[in-house]
């Protein structure tokens, strides 16, 4: 199997019939690794390589959808990118936001409590005391994948995805906390409702957070959530960043 070395670590390349490539490591990344696959994917995306139509970067794999101009020898071009220099260019100016969340609905709490063997109160207490950062773009435009969930709160996705999840739902899926941005089906376990949308559609990136930005959560009652939504227009206004 072809591979290249980056920071002394092997990046394996699987070629699926010249339709797409999958770049993987032998072991899962640390989600906050300096050379994480999401960051490597960001460099490949920004390099605008002609034989690649799409780049999808997750912390487990990078998928490169190929076009007809791809030749097997082109794989070498991936090895030749100057990752170190490009990663240094990526802005480190992260912003921090506070997001009010109402955890009062029933949602998928039964499943989450059962899987984590923790009470709702314990789980909320953990979440509001942690920093989460945007891990990657993925799923649907505006969806927010957040790093920072402690392993004891990891929760498997649903066996059969829900056909409809409301926008601004806060949910747990595997090792991530996530915020649904637009109406969609979804397989994550919903635990709360955020006060504000993070959508930035139709601009790029399509959500207000960028990779590396930090978000913290505060637990509010349904009345308080309603009051915040009625009086404050956006998360940037709520955080005094307008």
């Amino acid at each position: 199997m072809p591979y290249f070395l980056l920071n002394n670590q092997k990046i394996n390349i699987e070629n699926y019939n010249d339709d797409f490539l999958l770049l993987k490591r032998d072991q899962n990344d640390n989600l906050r690794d300096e050379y994480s696959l999401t960051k490597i994917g960001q460099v490949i995306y920004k390099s605008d390589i002609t034989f690649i139509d799409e780049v999808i970067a997750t912390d487990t794999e990078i998928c490169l959808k190929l076009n007809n101009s791809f030749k097997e020898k082109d794989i070498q071009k991936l090895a030749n990118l100057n990752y170190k220099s490009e990663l240094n260019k990526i802005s480190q100016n992260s912003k921090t936001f506070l997001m009010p969340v109402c955890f009062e609905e029933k949602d998928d709490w039964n499943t989450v409590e059962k899987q984590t063997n923790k009470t709702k109160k314990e789980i909320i207490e953990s979440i509001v005391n942690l920093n989460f950062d945007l891990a990657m773009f993925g799923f649907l435009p505006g969806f927010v994948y957040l790093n920072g969930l402690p392993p004891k709160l990891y929760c498997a996705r649903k066996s059969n995805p829900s056909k409809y999840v409301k926008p601004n739902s806060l949910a747990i899926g595997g090792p991530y906390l996530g915020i649904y941005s637009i109406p969609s089906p979804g397989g994550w376990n919903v635990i709360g409702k955020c006060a504000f949308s993070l959508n930035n559609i139709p601009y790029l990136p399509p959500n207000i957070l960028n990779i590396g930005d930090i978000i913290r959560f505060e637990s509010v009652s349904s009345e308080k959530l309603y009051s915040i939504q009625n009086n404050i227009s956006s998360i940037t206004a709520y955080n005094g960043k307008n």
Partner: protein
Amino acid sequence: MGKIKIDKPGMYSSIQDFGRIGYAYYAIPPSGVMDKGSAFLANKILGNPDNCPVLEMTIIPPQLTFLTDAVICLTGSNMNFKINNIICNNYQAIKVNKGDILNGNPSSGSHRSYLAVNGMFKTLKHYGSASTYSNAKLGGLSGTKLKQEDILEWNDTLSKNLTFEFTKEKHQIQAIQINKGPEFDWLPQESKVNLIESFFTIQTDSNRMGARLKGPNLEIQNKHINRSLPVLPGFIQLPPSGSPIVILQDGQTTGGYPRIAYIRQDELSKFNQIPISKPFQFALDLEF
């Protein structure tokens, strides 16, 4: 300028072109026509550029009133289209007069038809495409499927050359060719055989995001994947329920279920024309 009024919107009628390329990194799906070949022919016959937006009609066609003269072309599923109650042929340029009414019947075979006009529909354009992606209100007339009383407009630029000839390929639903996906080998032998030898149907709760399939329950080792994995249109995911889901043009870019197989882009148009509840099979050339 050409104009059409939507009298009845049909089941799901929307403006689509060849979709958004290069935005999956930001989780923006490609959207675009579900049957690329039929959309391409509709434009080709009228002498339009290949990627001109077209009206995609699903299962139940809309009723349209032409507010101006026009030249149109209908392709894809045969929905027994009529102009002023007179049957009109698919796959040819048709002259339409101001005041004419176009309607049709629900499709009985393949289920997506395309209408191109002599020019470029005026649409919203987001992320480089006019394709409607209603979940995020992108493209199309107002980011959504067409509604009653909507008016579609276009700058008419009739090509002088309408002599394009072609042989119409009848949409026959044969087996859908698939390739092994990254997690294909997680399937036990019995599930591999079931995937290839059994019949599946597309369920009624399918849409432009994904097609939920019904067939034999497919077992898999490692039902749960902790991390999110990349997916593209055509990928076949297997949730723990055992019923596969095919990611389609408006589908997500990452998912948490094993990707047991994928349908190539050129084969996906054929898959997208399979009628709801009509049994079909997958085919895999390689031994497993």
